[in-house]
């Protein structure tokens, strides 16, 4: 075991845990003001969109716009499937299958 690696791991663990823990500790037992609840209500949809869209249309390091990625082609039918069926399991399976198919064809 390398002592430096252990120090890195420990440091990383602490700074990762604090932002995960602090809001739960601070907010979960309190009556939150209405504006904050309203703001937090938009956070999930905003985060999910902010996580997904760059994965679909950017690539490389430094990132560049690329609208011809198989990730994007597959996302469209996957999105429609999710909209119609509202099935998480089905969407994951369909998405994987289509991505596998597209990569075989292209």
């Amino acid at each position, binding site marked *: *075991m390398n002592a430096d690696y252990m120090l890195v791991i420990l440091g990383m663990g602490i700074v990762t*845990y604090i*932002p*995960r823990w602090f809001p739960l500790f601070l907010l*979960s037992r309190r009556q939150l003001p209405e504006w904050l609840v309203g703001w937090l209500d938009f956070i999930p949809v905003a985060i999910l969109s*902010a996580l997904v869209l760059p*994965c679909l249309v950017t690539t490389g390091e430094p990132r560049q716009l690329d609208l011809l990625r198989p990730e994007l082609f597959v996302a469209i039918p996957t999105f429609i499937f999710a909209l119609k069926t509202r099935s998480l399991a089905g969407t994951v399976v*369909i998405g*994987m299958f289509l991505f596998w198919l597209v*990569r075989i064809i292209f």
Partner: protein
Amino acid sequence: MNSVSMENKENWQPVIKDGMVAAWPICLGYLPIGLAFGVIAQKAGLHPLEIGLMSLFVFAGSAQFIAVSMLSSGAAIVPIVVTTFMVNLRHLLMSSSLAVYLKGPSKGWLSLYAYGVTDESFALNLTKFRDEDWDWRRALVVNHTANIAWIGSTIAGGYGGEFIPSGAFGIDYALIAMFICLLVFQLRGLLYTIIAIIAGFLAVILSLMFPGNSYIIIASVIAATIGVFLRKSKIFSDSEKRL
């Protein structure tokens, strides 16, 4: 254990089953990423035990990838830890958002819950809290099932995960497909759809302008703030008052 059983009269067995069943898309998605991480970390000089410890202590995919690439290029401890902090700061928003649904558990349980807040468990549990009869115990099981899958797959990668062909069965797409579906579940009206579009476009633009992943926090905060103002405005105040 006595205080635990007093606090939770509910039988844990169905809870564990429900949580594990719900967690499967996350586990499936973690498998290729975890294997890939293990392979890279092992090449960077980490022993499988160190890989497992990093996955246990940190439990954050992208930060671990970045840390390993910094380690192999000879970076010092402090820059790696600071970068990790920046990369994982987005969990601040996720935990804030989850706090609304976590009023039941004691501080000890909350502290354990906090450990398992990831992009994936956050998205899945939050959707379930809102749409289903979901509780913090089941959500906690989701967190830890995903955690075990992550630790296991990274260690397996460290022992030589190269034998798994990359792209097998489209497994690389599992997490993207899950996020797409969870995003669809969040589109609960015109206003939410508008916020999603704003956040997505902002994220793409910011991600092209700046390295790193700060675009996630910035785009989400701006879009959610716009959402608050739009909800107050005349156009949406009649049709979309859901709070």
